[in-house]
C-alpha cells in the first residue's frame, strides 16, 4: 500500500474529494482494494461523521443519511415496518461485523467482486486498467452478468441493498462544488459499454449525501430472497427484490429487481409490465419473467442463472400474492 493521508470531513462542503483523494466510509471495500493494489488514493477523507440520520419525510417516505451504518438502517423501526424488503436485503449482505462498519454511501459505491478486477498483479481488467482487456470473458464467470454486459466487461454490482432500493424507486441525493442534485437510483449506475471504468453517474468531485425513498405501497407484501453458494456470508448468485399489490385479485402495482445479474440492480420492467393487470397465477408470473429473460445473454459459465432467476422470481411472487400489503 502506498503512503496515504487521512482527514475527517467536518461538513458536506468540506467533503468534496480533491484529485487523488477518496471518500472513506467504513473502509470495508476501499481498505481492502488499497491493500490489493487496485486503488491507490493519495488521501482518505473520512465521511462517517456526516449525516447518519434516518428520518420520515412529509410524503410518507424516508430519508437515510449516507453515513448511516448498514446495521443501523436494517434495525431501524421505520425501515422494518415500512420497508421490510430493504431491511431483509441489507441483512442478507456480508456479516454482522461488516454491516456495523459499512455505510449507505459506501455500500452504493462498492466495487465489483469480479476476481479478475481484484487481481491487480495477475489479470487483465478493463475496469481497473481501461483498454487492457478482460480475463473474465472466457474465464470463470459463475458470478458474472447475464444482462447488459459488453464485450469489454461482464462484471456485476455486488450490493444487496441497492437491489431493494431499485425496487423501491429510491433517489440518491448528491452534492458537489456545483451544488446539489438528485439522481434516481435507476439512473445512478451505468452499464459498462466501452467504459467499464465509469460505474456511476456521480461526478468525481461529488459526494452522496443521503438516499430517499417514496412511501411504499407494499410493506408486508414485499420480499428479498438471495440465492448463494453457502447459506450466509456469501455474495448473491442471484437475488430477487419484489413487491406486489392486488386490486380485486388483479395486479395493481408490482416491482421486481434482480441482483447478481448485471452491473446494476436490474429492474425487470418488462416482467412488471407483463404482470400488471393480470391475475398473478404461477403461469402468469412465469410468462412475465420469461419475457424479461428473453433479452438475457448468459456466458458459458453462468447459463444456470436463467433458470435460477425464473424459479426464484416465481417462488417469491407466488408467496407474496397471498400476503396482505
Amino acid at each position, binding site marked *: 500500500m502506498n*503512503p496515504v493521508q487521512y482527514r475527517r470531513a467536518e461538513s458536506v462542503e468540506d467533503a468534496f474529494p480533491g484529485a487523488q483523494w477518496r471518500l472513506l466510509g467504513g473502509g470495508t471495500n476501499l481498505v481492502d482494494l488499497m491493500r490489493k493494489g487496485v486503488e491507490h488514493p493519495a488521501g482518505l477523507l473520512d465521511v462517517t461523521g456526516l449525516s447518519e440520520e434516518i428520518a420520515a419525510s412529509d410524503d410518507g417516505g424516508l430519508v437515510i443519511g449516507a453515513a448511516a451504518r448498514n446495521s443501523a438502517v436494517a434495525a431501524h423501526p421505520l425501515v422494518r415496518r415500512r420497508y421490510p424488503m430493504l431491511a431483509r436485503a441489507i441483512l442478507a449482505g456480508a456479516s454482522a461485523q461488516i454491516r456495523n462498519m459499512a455505510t449507505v454511501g459506501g455500500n452504493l459505491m462498492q466495487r465489483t467482486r469480479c476476481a479478475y478486477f481484484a487481481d491487480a498483479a495477475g489479470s487483465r481488467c478493463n475496469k481497473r486498467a481501461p483498454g487492457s482487456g478482460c480475463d473474465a470473458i472466457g474465464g470463470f464467470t459463475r458470478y458474472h452478468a447475464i444482462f447488459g454486459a459488453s464485450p469489454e466487461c461482464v462484471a456485476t454490482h455486488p450490493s444487496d441493498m441497492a437491489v431493494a432500493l431499485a425496487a423501491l424507486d429510491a433517489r440518491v441525493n448528491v452534492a458537489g462544488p456545483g451544488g446539489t442534485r438528485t439522481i434516481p437510483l435507476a439512473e445512478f449506475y451505468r452499464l459498462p459499454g466501452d467504459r467499464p471504468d465509469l460505474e456511476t453517474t456521480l461526478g468525481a468531485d461529488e459526494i452522496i449525501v443521503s438516499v430517499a425513498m417514496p412511501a411504499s405501497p407494499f410493506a408486508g407484501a414485499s420480499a428479498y430472497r438471495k440465492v448463494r453458494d453457502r*447459506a*450466509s456470508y456469501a455474495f448473491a448468485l442471484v437475488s430477487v427484490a419484489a413487491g406486489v399489490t392486488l386490486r380485486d385479485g388483479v395486479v395493481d402495482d408490482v416491482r421486481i429487481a434482480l441482483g447478481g445479474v448485471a452491473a446494476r440492480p436490474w429492474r425487470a420492467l418488462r416482467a412488471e409490465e407483463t404482470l400488471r393487470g393480470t391475475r398473478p397465477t404461477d403461469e402468469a408470473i412465469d410468462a412475465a419473467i420469461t419475457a424479461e429473460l428473453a433479452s438475457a445473454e448468459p456466458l458459458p459459465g453462468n447459463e444456470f442463472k436463467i433458470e435460477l432467476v425464473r424459479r426464484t422470481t416465481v417462488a417469491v411472487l407466488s408467496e407474496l400474492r397471498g400476503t396482505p400489503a
Partner: protein
Amino acid sequence: MDITVNGTAVAPPDDARVSLLDMLRDHLHLTGTKVGCNQGACGACTVLIDGRRVLSCLTLAAQAAGREVTTIEGLDPHPLQAAFVERDGLQCGYCTPGQICAAAAMIDEVRAGVPSYVTADLSAESVPFSRDEVRERMSGNLCRCGAHNGIVDAILEVADGSTV
C-alpha cells in the same frame, strides 16, 4: 485524538495505512486478536468499537481515534470462555478470540431486538435465541476446525442461562 484500548489511551500511529489489527498486535503486543485472511472474510480479527463488533483488519487505526476499542484481553474474564471450553467450541483455538468477541456483541444485539436475515417477522420487537438465529448471526466467524456446533451450544448456554 487518542484511541482507548481496553481502558488505556494510546496515540494513533503516524502512518495512516496501519490497520487497527496491526496496531493492536504489532504496536501494542495485544496478540489475542488474530490475523486470518486480512481481507474481511473470516472474522478472526473481530474486536469491539464502542461496544459494536467490527473487523480490525479492514479498520484503519486512524478511524478508531476518539473511540473505545475492546479486544479479547479487555473482555477477559467472560462467561463465554468457560462455556466454549465445556462445550468443545474450539480445537486449535485460532478463531476463538474473534468468536468470543463476536458472540458477546451478538448477545447484546439479540437482547436489543436487532433482527437478522432469518428472523421471520422483521417488525417484531423481540427476537428469539434459536439455533438458527445464532448460526446466521455468527456466520461472519469461520472456524477451520469445524467447531461450529460446539460454538453455537456454548453461546446458547450463556445466552439462555443469562450468565452475561
